[in-house]
């Protein structure tokens, strides 16, 4: 076939293109197969599991049921069998959401001035500061969480110092509170806020700020009305980058929040452990994934719009 038509250069080209595409797919195959089997595929299996019946000792029975999904929001009363809101779940959803928002706001409050400070350093020194911000981010998340835990324990350095100075007479209970979780997440995710804002400030045309000053804007007015609108895309990007891992956080709330102050990730774990309700756990996981996807799509739209604007 190919021989008889080979003289038509158009088809020859098409054929070469096809061969090239085939070769590129072959090259990508190992990576694609590994991820299909051990990352993307299992998510599809989880969709199936969310529609099954929980087994008596964990795992599932292969009977179709919508209870996994229903139980995410409502539960049946043990005594009179009426449906009511699953308050425990709702309060955990709310905690996850509100702590993620608080973390985002806190990282912004500390991250924006840090990014500004770094971006206004002379070029040679910028990279050193940037490196200093990035190093903790790349260091082990569990280790950084342990560092926070040791700091805020009742016998930790903070309480000890406060006791010594005499500000307090009894240690402040910080561990196993929502505060501990928010503090820990702010600490571990701060670099995610600094980097995109830094990138935005670095691109900022300072002549515009000068123009504002020449037109008698005060420093604060120039900041609020000129600088802030210009670096807004960076702030939004940083906020989403902090919000997403906060919502899905597991290690930090487990170590700092303990068994009572659960977040979304810990609620999921519970269903695969003591809760023995895998379908519910699968449904909760898919809910969390959907929430993260929405945030991610928003992030992609914000960052690509920024690119399109130049």
């Amino acid at each position, binding site marked *: 076939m190919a021989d008889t038509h080979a003289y038509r250069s158009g088809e020859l080209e098409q054929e070469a293109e096809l061969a090239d*595409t085939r070769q*590129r*797919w*072959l*090259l*990508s195959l190992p*990576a*694609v197969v*590994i*991820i*299909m*089997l*051990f*990352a*993307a*595929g299992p*998510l599809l*299996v*989880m969709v199936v*599991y969310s529609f099954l019946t929980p087994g008596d000792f964990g795992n599932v029975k292969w009977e179709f049921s919508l209870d996994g999904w229903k139980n995410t929001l409502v539960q049946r009363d043990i005594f009179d069998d009426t449906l009511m809101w699953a308050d425990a779940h709702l309060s955990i959803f709310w905690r996850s959401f509100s702590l993620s928002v608080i973390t985002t706001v806190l990282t912004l*409050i500390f991250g924006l*001035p840090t990014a500004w400070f770094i971006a206004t350093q*002379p070029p040679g020194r*910028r990279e050193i500061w940037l*490196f*200093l*911000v990035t*190093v*903790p981010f*790349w*260091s082990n998340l*569990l*280790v950084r969480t*342990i*560092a*926070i835990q*040791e700091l805020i324990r009742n*016998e930790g*350095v903070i*309480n*000890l110092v406060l006791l010594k100075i005499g500000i307090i007479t009894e240690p402040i209970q910080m561990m196993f509170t929502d505060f501990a979780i928010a503090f820990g997440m702010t*600490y571990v995710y701060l670099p995610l806020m600094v980097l995109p804002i830094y990138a935005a400030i670095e691109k900022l045309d*300072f002549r515009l700020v*000068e123009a504002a*000053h*020449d037109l008698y804007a005060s*420093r604060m007015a120039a900041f609020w009305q000129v600088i802030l609108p210009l670096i807004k895309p960076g702030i939004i990007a940083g906020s989403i980058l902090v919000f997403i891992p906060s*919502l*899905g956080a*597991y*290690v930090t709330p487990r*170590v700092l929040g303990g068994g009572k102050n659960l977040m979304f990730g810990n609620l*999921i*774990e519970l269903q*695969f452990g003591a809760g023995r309700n*895998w379908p519910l756990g*699968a449904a909760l*996981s898919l809910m969390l*994934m959907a929430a993260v*996807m929405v945030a991610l799509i928003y992030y992609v739209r914000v960052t690509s719009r920024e690119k399109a604007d130049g």
Partner: protein
Amino acid sequence: MVEATTTQVEQSAAKPRPKRGPKGYSLRTLPGFTFVALFTMIVLYAPISILVIFSFNEGDSLAIWEGFSLQWYAKAAANEQVQEAAIRSLYLAFIASTIGTIAATMAALATTRTRRFTGKTMIYALINQPLMVPEIVTAVALLIVFAAIKVATGHNSMIYLIVAHTAFCIPFAYLPIRARLETMDNSLETAARDLYASAWQTFRMVTLPNMWPGIIAGMMLSFVISLDTVVITEFVKSAGQDTLPTYMLGQLRRVVTPEVNAISTVILFSGAILVALFFRLTQRKG
């Protein structure tokens, strides 16, 4: 990265140094910002520093200094569970990052410096998929699948951890390799082909040496990621398959001694060295 720094330099060369505004202060400083920034930098490093300092404590307190000693390092090194977990972590990270980097290198070669081809976006999305899903979700999804396999086959080896880590390593290896390839144009390869080098010779003697820093960077990054991964490991491991992070997570339920600090310090510094090398490799110009 490279482009960003050059434009940076040009900009600052073209513009005079931060000039004083009409009201007698630099436009580049905002009230309180430097203070908050320096405070933040201190807060960023204080907890880690305190953790490191108390790994050298002579007593067993994490907050009262009782003198310098290396006893917690000796204790950790002599602890059989720690030894096993450390070896398991390194073994796992080595295998997962090696396989992951090879797969990522091939995929990067296929998806960069090319026209749009059918499925290119799909390959790209798949490779980045593990980055887009919370780790806990990936972890329980793997738990579900592997539990079924374990029940069906009764097989309980490290293979589950290896494949799970490999899949998670691929996107981290892929990104620096792809970034490196995108800075290379096709002219050297074209020249080699014009001089009658075979496709394989061109790859071996032109493409591979040029993309090598990217490959090493990708391998180091994925190695660090595998070492740090705790959630996936926690859900996938069978009994007796603790890695260093899951071992430490388990220890936190008990009374914490500076032994945890000693292990943490070793993890921190080995990670920091790898990351510093990674930055050097990816930021070298040209």
